[in-house]
């Protein structure tokens, strides 16, 4: 068999999917992907095919999520869940280095890099867009060694969404549902018009090498057409919409819009939106010395602009009100992110909408401000 090359399109039968997984495990990858746990489809390590959410989907709306059975045995018949891939590249808690006492001084012991590469199985178009964003975020003045060490060796296996959730708006953000070129392998699950199968498109030589260890055949001409139809159908089913035109100037230009006060009254400041968001990257560090003081570990953990303490500068928080914190989040995400990182910080995945316990929906907030950009506060002074 001639080796496959970038751009090749091949068909993988569902019945051969276990061999695909085996090729990943045998290739030395730690395979992580969707799995059912605690009443949701989360991301976790996959050790056998049965770990995949076969025949499962979810129903989600603002502030609510329920696991639900499908009528078929699709492997990827769902959309986004509570977790995003950032938890692997930018872990919730990570030791950065350790300091050990040495005479009257100390020495720094760097963190060894993790030798096992990840295979990310089931990244959606919005997830890949988020990855491009965090790649830039963690490569500012100094590249983050932990993030880039894991990122450089991670295999990205994209899966095209077969439907959109009511909270999805990747079409508005220009990030999906079609998957561009930023993947090693791209899978489109085809459930009709023949046996249960996948169209596999090769995006990199690493992806090609993996696929060459799996039984596949050149894609019949009907399969790429069927895959295009999947994308079109999903695009037509977007549950949410956000018109990004002029949003940057709208938000930056209206810090005193009354809508900020309205949303702040509903917002818990609980941080769930930022934790669920695949591009939110705020963190804090803490020093954890032992009781004797001869060894101290430096840890980084996820933090959030919704925390009062997060904006604590010389003596007091500079964003003391919930209003100023919500405004900071949305304005950074949709406006100043463009200036800082050259794109919007939002990829339209809808996680912040579903996982906000009190149904706050950024698309609705933006729409309200677009509808009446020059509204002024009539009662009370903004806090």
């Amino acid at each position, binding site marked *: 068999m001639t080796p496959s090359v970038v751009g090749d399109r091949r068909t993988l039968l569902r019945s051969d999917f276990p061999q695909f997984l085996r090729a990943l495990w045998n290739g030395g990858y730690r395979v992580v992907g969707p799995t059912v*746990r*605690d*009443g*949701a489809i*989360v991301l976790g390590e996959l050790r056998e095919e049965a770990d995949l959410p076969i025949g499962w989907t979810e129903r989600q709306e603002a*502030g*609510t*999520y*329920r*696991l639900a059975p499908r009528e078929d045995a699709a492997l990827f018949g769902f959309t986004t869940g*509570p*977790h995003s891939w950032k*938890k692997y590249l930018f872990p*919730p*808690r990570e030791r950065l280095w350790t300091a050990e006492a040495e005479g009257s001084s100390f020495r720094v012991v760097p963190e060894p890099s993790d030798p096992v590469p990840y295979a990310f199985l089931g990244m959606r178009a919005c997830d890949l867009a988020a990855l491009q964003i965090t790649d830039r975020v963690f490569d500012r003045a100094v590249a983050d060694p932990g993030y880039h060490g894991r990122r450089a060796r991670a295999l990205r296996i994209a899966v095209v969404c077969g439907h959109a959730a009511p909270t999805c708006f990747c079409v508005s953000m220009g990030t999906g549902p079609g998957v561009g070129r930023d993947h090693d392998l791209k899978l489109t699950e085809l459930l009709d018009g023949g046996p249960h199968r996948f169209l596999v498109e090769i995006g990199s030589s690493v992806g090609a090498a993996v696929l060459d260890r799996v039984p596949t055949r050149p894609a019949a001409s009907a399969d790429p057409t069927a895959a295009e139809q999947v994308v079109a159908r999903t695009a037509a089913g977007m549950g949410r919409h956000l018109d990004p035109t002029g949003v940057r100037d709208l938000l930056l230009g209206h810090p005193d819009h009354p809508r900020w006060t309205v949303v702040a*009254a*509903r*917002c*818990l*400041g*609980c*941080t*769930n939106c930022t*934790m*669920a968001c695949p591009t939110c990257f705020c963190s804090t560090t*803490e*020093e*954890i*010395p*032992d*009781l*004797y*003081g001869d060894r101290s570990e430096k840890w980084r*953990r*996820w*933090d*959030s602009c919704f*925390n*009062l*303490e997060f904006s604590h500068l010389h003596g007091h928080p500079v964003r003391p009100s*919930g209003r100023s914190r919500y405004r900071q989040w949305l304005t950074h995400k949709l406006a100043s992110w463009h200036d800082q990182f050259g794109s919007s910080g939002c990829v339209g995945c809808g996680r912040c909408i*579903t*996982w906000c*316990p*009190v*149904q706050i929906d950024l698309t609705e907030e933006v729409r309200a401000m677009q509808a009446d950009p020059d509204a002024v506060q009539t009662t009370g002074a903004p806090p």
Partner: protein
Amino acid sequence: MPGPSRPRLAVWKFASCDGCQLTMLDCEDELLPIADRVEIANFHEASSAVGDGPYDISLVEGSITVPEDAARIREIRAQSRFLVTIGACATSGGIQALRNFADVEEFRRVVYARPEYLRTLATSTPIAAHVPVDAELRGCPIHKAQLLELLGAILSGRRPNLPADSVCIECKRRGNVCVLVARGTPCLGPVTHAGCGAICPAFHRGCYGCFGPSEAPVPDALLPKLEALGMRPEELERFFQTFNAAAPAFRAASESVRNRRGPP
């Protein structure tokens, strides 16, 4: 090295159940290094050997419910360099602060055969209502890791890492699936002080708020959600009236529910 210069530690009990003090004894592996670094001068729960003050660190458990204790805490404060309150009773008045919402006179008459033998205050109040407090550890009971962090910080003269943000952030860092969103289970996590590591949601239970209010809680934003999940007003009131019933933000929440539904 153990020696005469070790900081002296005292543990004090007021109206409480002893559970927070027991957390100290629960620090099995770390107990020896602690005993090595500090002199445990006064800890009735652990040793009958009691040393006189002054003390470098006083850990205070329990709330003030009787006049004698209001005087005793002042003496302890006067003898302590660092005074740290531990647990819901000491930091907010505890479950016994439910009396603050009721008529203590009536309790006395109903519960005790000879109420005239009983001298009690009308309220259960946190230690900070009586004397200045240097640091507090929340929880019912406190979390062992936070106790060790605090002692380590005092010993090395640094600020302790005791984040006052919400339980939700701990839930998310731990990878828990939100029970409020994915199960419709009432949860106080969004308004509750972090520190427990989001234990209850990890076991599919809603947070009971045993660490009390977070740094910037917005209970008014949570009430409509809890109502939408089917909680009746009397259930909602009780939800906020447990271990930290008298903490101002939780008290305001239960009172706003009560005011809306009128007198019982």
